[in-house]
Every structure is written in structure tokens, then in C-alpha cells.
């Protein structure tokens, strides 16, 4: 009996908590008090006819709220902030309805009144601003230009910029640069003041996008590292800009989940690095799958997770350095194919390597070796490049090349040069001098 009573008490308590939760649910949505519109409008008294007033100058307590303004003169607008100019003198009741984008009860607001007075001599200026680029990566500058602003009866004396990230700037020239450290959409407010101390405002929006922070699972590929002073900065004037389709690439998942067009203007340093050394040296010119040619300063390797025939079309790991930020991104690259028939040379070299392996009693290494699951594929990738890259073939004699490929497959130093396979100097042969 006692047990039943205890269960009953627990059940009552549980139901009470549940009921309280349900009843309090709408209140949980927003508990930050009311939005006092008086604190969020640039000017309430002595507003001149035609003067722009900014509505929504304070920080919105709920960042993703949708705000609909009623200016009291028959005009309405949506946003935070917005600007409006009254056309005739009088008192105007300003109200705003703020709601969550996801729905639910509105956030309470305290309405206010604005007093608009007739023009007294000085005609207020007109504010206009543009931003370029309108979409940018974090850390890169945006140029804000207010040149189109004007004053019908005088001059603009100063420009006040509220970048909406906590920083503000006052300038006497129409142009200013600003960089954002955090991604997001920023509604920048420009207020221009004329020689009669009348002002006008406008809003210009910019979107700041984060640098890719996740390229390969588990590895942070974005390194905020300044360019070494001695590093060469290759400026290939033939390439005005490069579009890179990049995305999150997971092994076994092809193609990347999304594409992000990144527009790069010189100067930038484009380096394709190798994530597997066995395919170096490689040609120094590639083209993105979109067809844009890229030049690389180092050797490149292809990923072995591609579903495509390797050695000619696959994924490369490309590092791009922009203003000191290094982004390592996987890109689909196609290597230009040979324009001559090299089959005879390829199969001949292939058989020489096979013979070398057989002499070492390591023929199986061509199938699967201690180092590579598919030895023949590795050998063919190297042979193709050896035949195609003239300077590579000139500097490594054929027999030496055969021995080095065989060494790689066997994972054994057989020619006694202290290296298994290619030396660092050998790999450097694929790099064009002067880049």
C-alpha cells in the first residue's frame, strides 16, 4: 500500500512538472523583456522633412528575429536596421512587430513617436553607399564607397560608418576599407553629415564567409600562417583569376558534398602539394575540371580514392595562400594527356621493371607490395610521367629509373644509394625553374 502511495506521489510530481513545462513553453521562447523602440531609432525629435532616420540602431536581442516596421505615415518596411524619411511635418506613431522566423508568439516592443519638423534653411544630404565585394572571406578587406552620396545645397563634411561588428569609423573621404573576423551578414549603416550639420543614413549589406575549416575529416587544414619572406610568389599573368570548386571531401564519397566558388584575383600563390610522394615529379601544368588552367609550383600527387582512372584524372590536394591564409583543398584535376603514342615505351619500361623485380625474386611486388596495394598501378603512373616529362627522362637514365621504381615497389634499397626509390632531388625535377 505504501509502495502504491509512493508511486502515486512520483506520478503526481512528474505530471505537475510536465504540465508546468507545457504551460511555460511559450514563455521560454523569449524572456529578455521588451524591445524599447525609443532606444533603437537614430532620432526622435526635430527630424527634418526629407531627413533619413535609421530604425534599428541598437542590437536586436534575438538575432534571427523578423521585424516589420510601421512608420506611422502610411509607409512600412521590414528589416533591422532600415531607413526612412518623412515627407511632411507632424507627429508619427512608430510601431514594430518582431517575430521569430520559425514562428511563435511575437516579441513585445514598446512603440514610440517621432516629431518631424519643416525644413529650416539647410536641406539634408542624401546618403548612398556600395560595397565591393559584397561577399568576402573572413579577414579580407571590403571597400565601402559613399561617393554617390550628395548634398543639394552644400557639401558632405563627414561619413560615419557603423560596420555592425562593434567597430565604427568617421572619415572625411567617401571611401573606407574594413575586414570582418567573423562570418555573417552585416547591415552596415552609413550616415553622412553636411556642412549645415544635417545628416542622412543608408544601409548596405555584405556577407562574410568563413574560410573552409574542414576539408578532410579530423584534420584542421586551415593554418593562419604568414607567407615566409623568402617564399617565391609566382604571378602567372596568363591566369587572371581562378575558380576553384571546393568542398568537403570524404574518402569513398565522390564528388564533394557541395561546391563553393572561390574567386581569386592576383596576387596569390597557388601551390599544389603532394599527399603521396610516389607520383612526384609530375607535370607542372594542370587544368581544373571546369576547364580553367592552373600552374603549380610544386609537384602534385593524385588521391588513390578516386573512382576514375588514375594518373590522369583524379583529386589533387591544392594549397592556396591568400593574404597569409593557407587553405588546403581537394580539387578535381585533369592532367593533360599525351599527344603522342607512348604505348610502346610504357609497356617496354613496365616489362623491364618486372624483369628487375623477378631478378630480385620479388615479382609479386608488382601485384601488391609492402608499400602499395596495387604495385602495377604505381609503376604505370611513374612510367607515364617519366616518358612524358622530357627533362625528367633526360636527367634520370632509364636503367636508374627502372631500379628506383622497383625499389619503391619492394620497399628496399637495392642500388646502394642510401635511398629507397627516388631522392628529393629526383622529385624536384618535375618543378619548373623560375616559379
Amino acid at each position, binding site marked *: 500500500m505504501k509502495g502504491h502511495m509512493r508511486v502515486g506521489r512520483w506520478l503526481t510530481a512528474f505530471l505537475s512538472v510536465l504540465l508546468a513545462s507545457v504551460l511555460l513553453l511559450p514563455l521560454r521562447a523569449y524572456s529578455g523583456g521588451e524591445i524599447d523602440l525609443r532606444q533603437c531609432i537614430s532620432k526622435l525629435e526635430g527630424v527634418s522633412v526629407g531627413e533619413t532616420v535609421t530604425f534599428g540602431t541598437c542590437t536586436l536581442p534575438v538575432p534571427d528575429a523578423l521585424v516589420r516596421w510601421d512608420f506611422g505615415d502610411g509607409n512600412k518596411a521590414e528589416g533591422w536596421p532600415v531607413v526612412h524619411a518623412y515627407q511632411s511635418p507632424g507627429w508619427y506613431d512608430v510601431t514594430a512587430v518582431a517575430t521569430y522566423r520559425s514562428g511563435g508568439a511575437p516579441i513585445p516592443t514598446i512603440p514610440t513617436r517621432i516629431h518631424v519638423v519643416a525644413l529650416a534653411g539647410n536641406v539634408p544630404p542624401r546618403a548612398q553607399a556600395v560595397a565591393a565585394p559584397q561577399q568576402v572571406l573572413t579577414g579580407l578587406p571590403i571597400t565601402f564607397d559613399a561617393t554617390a552620396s550628395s548634398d543639394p545645397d552644400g557639401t558632405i563634411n563627414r561619413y560615419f560608418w557603423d560596420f555592425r561588428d562593434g567597430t565604427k569609423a568617421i572619415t572625411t573621404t567617401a571611401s573606407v576599407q574594413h575586414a570582418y573576423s567573423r562570418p555573417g551578414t552585416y547591415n552596415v549603416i552609413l550616415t553622412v553629415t553636411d556642412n549645415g550639420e544635417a545628416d542622412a543614413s543608408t544601409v548596405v549589406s555584405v556577407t562574410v564567409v568563413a574560410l573552409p575549416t574542414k576539408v578532410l575529416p579530423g584534420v584542421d587544414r586551415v593554418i593562419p600562417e604568414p607567407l615566409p619572406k623568402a617564399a617565391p610568389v609566382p604571378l602567372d599573368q596568363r591566369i587572371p583569376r581562378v575558380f576553384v570548386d571546393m568542398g568537403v571531401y570524404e574518402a569513398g564519397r*565522390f564528388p564533394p558534398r557541395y561546391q563553393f566558388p572561390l574567386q581569386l584575383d592576383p596576387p596569390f600563390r597557388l601551390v599544389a602539394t603532394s599527399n603521396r610522394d610516389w607520383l612526384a615529379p609530375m607535370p607542372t601544368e594542370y587544368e581544373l575540371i571546369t576547364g580553367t588552367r592552373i600552374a603549380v609550383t610544386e609537384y602534385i600527387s593524385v588521391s588513390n580514392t578516386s573512382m576514375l582512372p588514375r594518373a*590522369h584524372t583524379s583529386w589533387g590536394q591544392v594549397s592556396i595562400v591568400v593574404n597569409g591564409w593557407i587553405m588546403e583543398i581537394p580539387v578535381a584535376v585533369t592532367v593533360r*594527356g599525351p599527344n603522342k603514342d607512348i*604505348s610502346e615505351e610504357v609497356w617496354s619500361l613496365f616489362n623491364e621493371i618486372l624483369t628487375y623485380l623477378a631478378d630480385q625474386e620479388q*615479382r609479386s611486388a608488382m601485384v601488391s607490395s609492402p608499400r602499395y596495394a*596495387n604495385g*602495377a*598501378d604505381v609503376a*604505370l603512373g611513374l612510367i607515364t610521367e617519366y616518358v612524358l616529362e622530357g627533362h625528367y627522362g633526360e636527367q634520370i637514365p632509364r636503367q636508374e629509373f627502372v631500379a628506383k621504381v622497383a625499389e619503391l615497389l619492394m620497399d628496399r634499397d637495392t642500388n646502394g644509394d642510401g635511398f629507397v626509390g627516388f631522392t628529393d632531388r629526383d622529385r624536384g625535377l618535375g618543378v619548373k625553374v623560375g616559379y
Partner: protein
Amino acid sequence: MRRMVGCLALIALLATVLAGCGKPSLGPKETAEAFLKAMESRDFVTAYGLLSADSQASIRAEEFQENMNRAWNDAGIAGFHIESVQQEIIAASGTRASVPYSATLTKGSGETAVVYNALSLVKQGKDSWGVIWPPTR
């Protein structure tokens, strides 16, 4: 009665033998050729059927076809033509083989490139072989 049972047993034995003869087992080179032929005609269903059991276990048929179609489309490959399939190389263990081949890739722009690659195969059961996918696994 005993004779009838004997006849039925003989028929059953013959049927089993004939059924076995209906699907001749392919060697590494023949399996690779069949796989590459399927790839050439973008018949990814047949290609999937020639994968090793382990490879099939790692990817579903629909997923394999989808991936292949996407990969080819993204790379802008308009044609894949087999040029030559070389003699297989069988590892000392006898359970793994490599079949080198060359093929011409034609891109949408009409540009062609000859690729030199090798397929890895693994022995399955007594006489049949399956293609390892991806080839560098």
C-alpha cells in the same frame, strides 16, 4: 523401384554437372577484360557484378552506379575506349593478380588522353576472380 531411384540420382548428378558447365570460370585477364568492357559501355550494373565479394560488401550496387555516373559526368568524360589489356601478373600466393591496361579517355571537348592503369583482382573460390574496387585498395 531401385532402378528408378538410380535413374533419378543419375539425372540429378548430370543436371548438377551441366549447371556447373553453364558458367565457365574466368581467369584474371578475362575477368578484367569483362569488367573494362562493361566500363567502356558504361554498363555499371555488369561491372558491379564482377567486383570481388569484399568490394561488393563495401559498396551497394546503386551507390557504385551513382558514384561512377557522377564521377564520369564531373570529369567530363565522353568516352572510355580500351586500347590494350596486358597479360596478368599473379602474386606468388596465387590469390592476387594484377592486370595492366591502357585506355583512351575522350573528354567533352573532344580532347583525348591515353591512360595506363592496372586492375587488382582477388581469387574467389576455386577458379573465379573478382575485381578489387577501388583499384588501389
